[in-house]
């Protein structure tokens, strides 16, 4: 369901939850993965967006 997906970093297992966003990094709650800036990197390990995959929970 759009707006409620989760994306997992392949490098460090960090999970980006669209519902929560990353307010500390200027990404409001509810931000779709597609709208996360392309130059955003994983806050834990610095991996680029391309190293994330959609996670099943």
């Amino acid at each position: 369901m759009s707006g409620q997906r989760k994306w997992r970093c392949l490098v460090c297992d960090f999970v980006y939850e669209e519902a929560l966003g990353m307010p500390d990094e200027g990404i409001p709650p509810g931000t779709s993965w597609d709208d996360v800036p392309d130059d955003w990197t994983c806050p834990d390990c610095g991996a680029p967006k391309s190293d994330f995959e959609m996670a099943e929970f």
Partner: protein
Amino acid sequence: MSGLVIIGTGHAGLTLAREWRKRDPDTALTLVTADDGAAYYKPNLSKALASGKTADELITAAPDKVAADYAAELITGVQVTALDPAAKQITLNDGRHQAYAQLVFANGASCRHIPVQGDAADTVLHVNNRLDYQRFRQQLPDGGHVVIIGAGLIGCEYANDLVAQGYDATLVDPLAWPLGMLLPETVARSLEQALTNAGAQFRLGQTVSRVDHAGAQYQVTLDDGATISADLVLSAVGLVPNTAVAKEAGLATGRGIKVNPRMETSAADVYALGDVAEVGGHVLPYVLPITNCARALAATLAGEPTAVQWPAMPVMVKTPVLPTVVCPPPARAAGEWQMEGGAPDWVARFVGGDGTLLGFALTGAATRERGRLAGETRPPQFAD
């Protein structure tokens, strides 16, 4: 089979494999590792209790998946004992030889061991990989008391993880404040206070002189004669790059295997990155520098010689009781720490004589400033 041979399957080796395969899907790849070849993210070891994970649950890809993902032959459970750069082959401790067209040392570092006396000195645990961590967890009794030798980054992360989950932790360190090699005192005192409030104990300005058996427990003796009962003793006093094989083969080594910003060692077609490497004079055993080096080396190995570009790279200290970020100033840099804010939310800038920002440390709510400050900080400079 020759092709690319990478020694080590930690963050350095596997990031290189991933980035290189994006550019070269066809050339043979051999990964050689002393452990079981399972992929995991090492910084997650020191927060595994809080994340509710066992050592096995930290695995992000099993060995067969690692081999399949990177179309690699994976040789596990072996040590590399020798390198012959003229013949372009390495020797393994099972007697096998492995030829290479290009070789990468990504074989990491080992825990520094400090001399400790006592009849239980050999029970002190050093955790540097997932299998070490598994032993730590097997030996950790529920709610037990862990004495941690070293109140640096790793020691404080383990202490936070333990006390937050109902264990006891005592940190022993010869320096006057935690993370004494990385943080200015004012900032470090806030972290010390937060860890103390969470239940950790500090014995600063002290070293562990003895560890002896005491029934089912251990008795830890400090150099002032004080004793502490412990269920487990964990040593976290830094890393020593694994340079022996490279050095024996005649490669230039210093603290690590010396490489230029293209990760080239002094031997043709031999490269190094990660905790084992000394890149343009820097040994930076942190995730971001290694990731950047791996991307540059992947391009170089795929035929596009590329020097690593290092921005200022902050290190996240995984102490949830007081989130802390440090971007360490270069070793021996001249300058001074300037403080802003107040406990526990500090912005500390390390400023050089000419006003250049050379490093910073942030705690609490101030950690959200890390991106902005990193952009203002002079990146590490490479020695010639």
